[in-house]
């Protein structure tokens, strides 16, 4: 198992230990025969790029998560800066100019229609998912982050089933489902929304279900 991040932030003892492992050798072997990634090009350019730096950049970063290579110290080379920008930017000091939202998320938020709803609903679901993520929840479905959780019904196939707008799991295992719902003038969910909520409650009676009126 390889772990990225702190073990690779310039601690020579840890690096030496890592270099003695089978994982290191296997990684290097694979990288030497595999295609150079954009990360490799970027990191070696930033680091100066002699053979040793290239090998270490390869061994440390290329198959892993590029942005987490920030902070890596290469001998005689400047340490790559760790990013400390606005809180909605995908951390990517090796990818200058990266926008705050990924291309998919931009499309998700700007487009309209289908099960994901109009732009207002999409934005609302995305914002809710980010609020839960900010509280340490893993978004396990929906919210513009992942495919929605599907709760099957009587079948066959997806018949009688329900797609959940957002499913989130807390670090201690609690599961919360959030449906953004159309409402009647009296504030109650429309019959279709109420039926979907009932299906979710029937299938997961012990979990929390939150119904939030859609932004209009």
């Amino acid at each position: 198992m390889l772990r990225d991040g702190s073990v690779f932030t310039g601690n020579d003892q840890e690096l030496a230990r890592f270099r003695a492992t089978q994982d290191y050798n296997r990684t290097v072997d694979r990288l030497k025969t595999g295609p150079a990634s954009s990360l490799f090009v970027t990191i070696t350019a930033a680091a100066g790029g002699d053979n040793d730096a290239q090998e270490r950049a390869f061994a440390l970063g290329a198959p892993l998560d590029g942005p987490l290579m920030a902070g890596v110290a290469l001998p005689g080379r400047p340490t790559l800066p760790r990013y400390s920008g606005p809180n909605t930017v995908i951390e990517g000091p090796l990818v200058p100019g990266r926008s705050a939202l990924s291309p998919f998320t931009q499309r998700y938020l700007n487009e309209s229609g289908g099960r994901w709803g109009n732009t207002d609903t999409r934005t609302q679901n995305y914002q809710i998912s980010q609020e839960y993520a900010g509280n340490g929840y893993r978004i396990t479905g929906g919210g513009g982050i992942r495919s929605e959780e599907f709760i099957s019904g009587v079948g066959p196939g997806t018949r009688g089933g329900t797609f959940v707008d957002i499913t989130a799991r807390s670090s201690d295992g609690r599961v919360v489902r959030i449906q953004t719902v159309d409402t009647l003038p009296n504030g109650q969910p429309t019959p279709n929304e109420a039926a979907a909520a009932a299906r979710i409650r029937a299938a997961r009676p012990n979990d929390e279900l939150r119904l939030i009126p859609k932004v209009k």
Partner: protein
Amino acid sequence: MMKRIFFFATPADIIPILKRLESNAPLKFVSTENMATPDREIYLDSTEIPNPGVSTHESGHASTNYLVSHQNTKNNVHAFVGTKGEKRWVLDNSDNEESVNLTMAGIWKDMLLPGTMDTLHETPVAQQLMKLFVAALKAEGFTKVDMYWIGKEALEMLKAGKRLTQAEQSPPEFDVKL
């Protein structure tokens, strides 16, 4: 576009699936937990994944999840500040267009919970991973029952009267029936 694949698999069912999947191209399996540290579990070989086919939660959907991509695909990790001011890191399918999510779930107590492979993306790489997964299921003798692919050992459990269900808490009417 293939969006979701549902399956029931015991450890004996899922391990050969992972091997077949990796035989096409070197893959990495990266934990998608919401972390307060940049450290994240990365497996470059499926044999290193702890307990595949054993659910870590009473709901299959909430069990341990991995982002699966080619080893030379750069994963975009989203860093942000949490509500308590702490820095957090997440790895989402939405930020990684050449990836799929894999939740294996599996054995939970005396029942079996469903796994999923899903993706938001239509990219050739993501769709190829989905297709390769289905091909592996077929090659390993999984049986399609309604919307679920069911492994050989999982099918034996079903025939033996064990529950194949979405979550332990789900009432019996949500169990898979032959």
